[in-house]
């Protein structure tokens, strides 16, 4: 996996295992639901890897979309991440769950793309992303309530996008995508205390950004 290590400015912890970065010991993986498919894929079974793709493509897309915005580029990154994973599957040692390894590849590829296209385009993507996709799912609510919720949702989304990458990813993985702390920390190759610290700082920033919309008298 050393060959997959990619520079991630502001995201030192995302180097792939063995890439010469500070070592973070991951918890032993007792049960990885993907273990059987991974073993078959490592033996060259393409159908097994395709099953892994079908199992994880949507989730990986969601994470990458939070980093790059929804669109063709996100889809390209997801495809590239799976292709890299397939080419490197024999080097996956099972010291983390397969999906955390896959997410690392996807996140590193996302950051590499963001660097390639430059900050201007990233800002554009962020703006476009924040302005789209704010449908309210509960159609039974009064228009005023719907409008308030839509505004809050929009503000939350923008606040997430405004976070620096090293704070945004913990929030995306833990609070939006619903990974456990242990899983999200493993994706970022952080110890849990360091991960929790970043998550807390990220939440505080987002809370501050939306304070005017969520209640009176908040600190």
């Amino acid at each position, binding site marked *: 996996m050393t060959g997959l290590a990619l520079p991630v400015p502001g995201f030192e912890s995302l180097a792939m295992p063995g890439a010469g970065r500070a070592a973070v010991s991951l918890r032993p993986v007792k049960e990885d639901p993907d273990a059987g498919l991974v073993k078959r894929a490592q033996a060259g079974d393409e159908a097994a890897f395709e099953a892994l793709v079908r199992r994880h*493509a949507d989730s990986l897309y969601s994470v990458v979309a939070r980093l790059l915005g929804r669109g063709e580029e996100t889809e390209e990154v997801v495809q590239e991440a799976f292709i890299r994973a397939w080419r490197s599957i024999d080097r996956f040692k099972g010291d983390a769950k397969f999906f955390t390894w896959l997410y690392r590849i996807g996140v590193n590829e996302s950051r590499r793309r963001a660097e390639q296209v430059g900050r201007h385009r990233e800002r554009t993507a962020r703006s476009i992303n924040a302005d789209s996709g704010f449908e309210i799912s509960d159609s039974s609510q009064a228009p005023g309530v719907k409008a308030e919720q839509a505004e809050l949702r929009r503000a939350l989304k923008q606040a997430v996008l405004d976070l620096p990458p090293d704070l945004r990813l913990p929030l995306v993985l833990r609070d939006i995508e619903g990974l456990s702390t242990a899983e999200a920390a493993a994706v970022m190759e952080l110890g849990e205390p360091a991960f929790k610290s970043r998550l807390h700082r990220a939440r505080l920033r987002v809370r501050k950004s939306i*304070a005017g919309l969520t209640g009176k008298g908040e600190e």
Partner: protein
Amino acid sequence: MNPLKKMVTMPWFMREHRWTRAHLSEHLDGELPPEETERARRHLHDCSSCRKLLAALRRTVSGLGGLREPPPPDVAERVVSRMNKEP
């Protein structure tokens, strides 16, 4: 002096205040060990400022959980299709 204001000036109160604020997310997530959960609860009982912040964080995290959006259809199938075209 107002009892609460008096309390705020006490070093032990400020020490607990700083500690609790630094651990509010862990408390919210239920990830503090039992003795530290109790420590946080004790301070929260005495500190309206921390209670407000905890409530605000709870609303924030709840809102974030609602941001998940479904990906476009057939992402996986397009990945498989691309993989099949790769040399």
